[in-house]
């Protein structure tokens, strides 16, 4: 499903060049549940952003189902994200001025999906927060907010779900519950890539990839 060949990413800031990725080769098969682990600054989020089409590599080739994504311009990347990618972020990235229902509905609106209400309520049901549909993100606990974010990703119905430290802002028990949610999503046939620095979380993934200093550690 995903093939990365010698992916490099440099950030240039005030003549200082930071090599975030220094030649990553990676293969992720369809339907897998992959955990990417690494210390802070190892380049794992950069890797996830490139996989998700949120950022572009400086060098290297990124194939998604044999399509060369690394050559895409911003417009094509937007279409790619819309069709294939859902994100879950550490800080939940919910829009606080929208209700839980409206947050989950948002990806459906942009995709012009019919029968939105049923889909949204199904996703909220699956995440166990259907009774909070009318509440606003600020009225929810961290765990509930993350469930809402996962429900939003689920509603988009994309083949690939990317999660950047989804348990990072949660306590251990809540974090474990959230991983259960990802497991459920994975079981429904989605490919899940999850970034974490927590070994307990990583241990629950099918495959683990370790990244260190911008390189995959075998």
């Amino acid at each position, binding site marked *: 499903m995903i093939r990365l060949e010698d992916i490099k990413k440099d950030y240039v800031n005030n003549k200082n060049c930071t090599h975030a990725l220094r030649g990553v080769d990676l293969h992720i098969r369809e339907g897998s549940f992959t955990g990417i682990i690494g210390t802070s600054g190892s380049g794992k989020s950069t890797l996830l952003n490139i996989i998700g089409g949120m950022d572009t590599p400086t060098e290297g080739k990124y194939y998604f189902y044999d399509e060369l994504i690394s050559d895409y311009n*911003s417009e094509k990347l937007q279409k790619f994200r819309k069709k294939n990618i859902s994100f879950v972020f550490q800080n939940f990235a919910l829009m606080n001025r929208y209700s839980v229902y409206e947050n989950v509905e948002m990806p459906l609106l*942009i995709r012009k999906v019919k029968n939105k209400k049923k889909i949204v309520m199904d996703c909220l049901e699956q995440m166990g927060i259907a009774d909070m549909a009318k509440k606003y993100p600020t009225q929810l606990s961290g765990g509930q907010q993350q469930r809402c974010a996962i429900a*939003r990703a689920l509603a988009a119905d994309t083949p690939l779900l990317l999660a950047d430290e989804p348990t990072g802002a949660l306590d251990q028990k809540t974090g474990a519950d959230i991983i259960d949610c990802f497991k459920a999503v994975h079981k429904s046939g989605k490919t899940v890539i999850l970034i974490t620095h927590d070994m307990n979380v990583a241990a629950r993934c099918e495959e683990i990839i370790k990244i260190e200093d911008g390189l995959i550690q075998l």
Partner: protein
Amino acid sequence: MLHLRLAIDNIFSQFKRFLISVIIIAVSIITLVCTVLAYELQGYAYDSCDELLAQGFEKTGVLYVDDETEHEIEDAGTCFWEDASTRKEIASLGCMSTYLFRFSDELLNIQGENDEGIFITNGDEFTVMTIDARSLNLCNMELSKGIEPEELEFSRESGENIHRYIYLGSAYESIPIGTEYIMEGAGYSFVYTVAGILEEGQRWVSPNLSIEMNSTSIDYTIDCTYGIFCVDNLQYFTNELWISASDEYSIDEAVEVCLEVADKYGVTVRYTTLTELYETSCMENVQILSYLAEVFVIIVPAVLLMLIAMQIVSMLFELNTYGIMCSMGFGTKDISIMIMIKNIIMALMGLVIAAPVIVWIEKSFMKEAPAPILAEVPCLVALPIAVVILLVVIFLTTIVSIIMLKRYTPVELMGKRN
């Protein structure tokens, strides 16, 4: 609908900033309307006369014939007038004045309470504008019916029966052409024949214009709806003569010929062109407008920059939201449309706030406007200009937004970099 909804949500999430922008836009529109209004008023006296005068504002002037030795000059003046009238450089040279006449109760009844402007009644007497036949083509006279001024035939009559033609305003349309009114006095009688009815909306140049133009008056044309114009060629002497230059000559050339002819008959002639009168009288207004223009030149770009700056600040606060939207599948186009809708709503709100003020200006200051077109200046002229400028603001702010969105990747928008 989605973009509209997002735009409205975006507005409410930054309501204070939105409100400040709306107020700035409203104040800008009002300032703009007032400035345009000042310009339109300033130019109106010139434009309205320029349109009405057959040879235009810049080819018309007034000659003042000195009358220190009245009787001698009167003869010499008449000779000068007759001679100068025949010169090719001169299109028209004649006089016009207002007199009080009483010759028809029928006309008086039609005029009724509608005695306005210079055509006022005094008891049972009319104010009639008497125009020398040789200055008839000073203005463009348009008739709805009757005999054109150039086809009038004058016979030199003297003694008891003196014949004059009258042209009536459109209010007297029911009076048949050829109707005669007789005004009798001690030992004389005048016969007035209705020669034509003026077109509705016909105006005539005000006799006051020959004396001065002042900076407060904005119009020197008079409404002829209830006007009565008496035309004759009696060559009575007047020391104010209207002059307009022929097609191929300038007013200076026409005046030069007049001065030569005046010399020939020993008449002292002073003159002024309408352009001189206008420039002298309007200097004060021109200066005020020039200051206004300078202030405006500073204010408009400053307001534009302020609006754009506010948009940028507003965007910087919203970058994270835009990043989240991008992660959900929204594109730059979607976000740009949302920003554009937000800007349009902002501009419309500004207009909604400014509109009552503009209507108030129109009703309070323009209700006595001499011409309907001038009364509508705030809405018909100034407002469209304001709308065009607003469109430019919307366009610029949207472009700035798009440039910013294009410049950053979704990750940068979200401020996430690892």
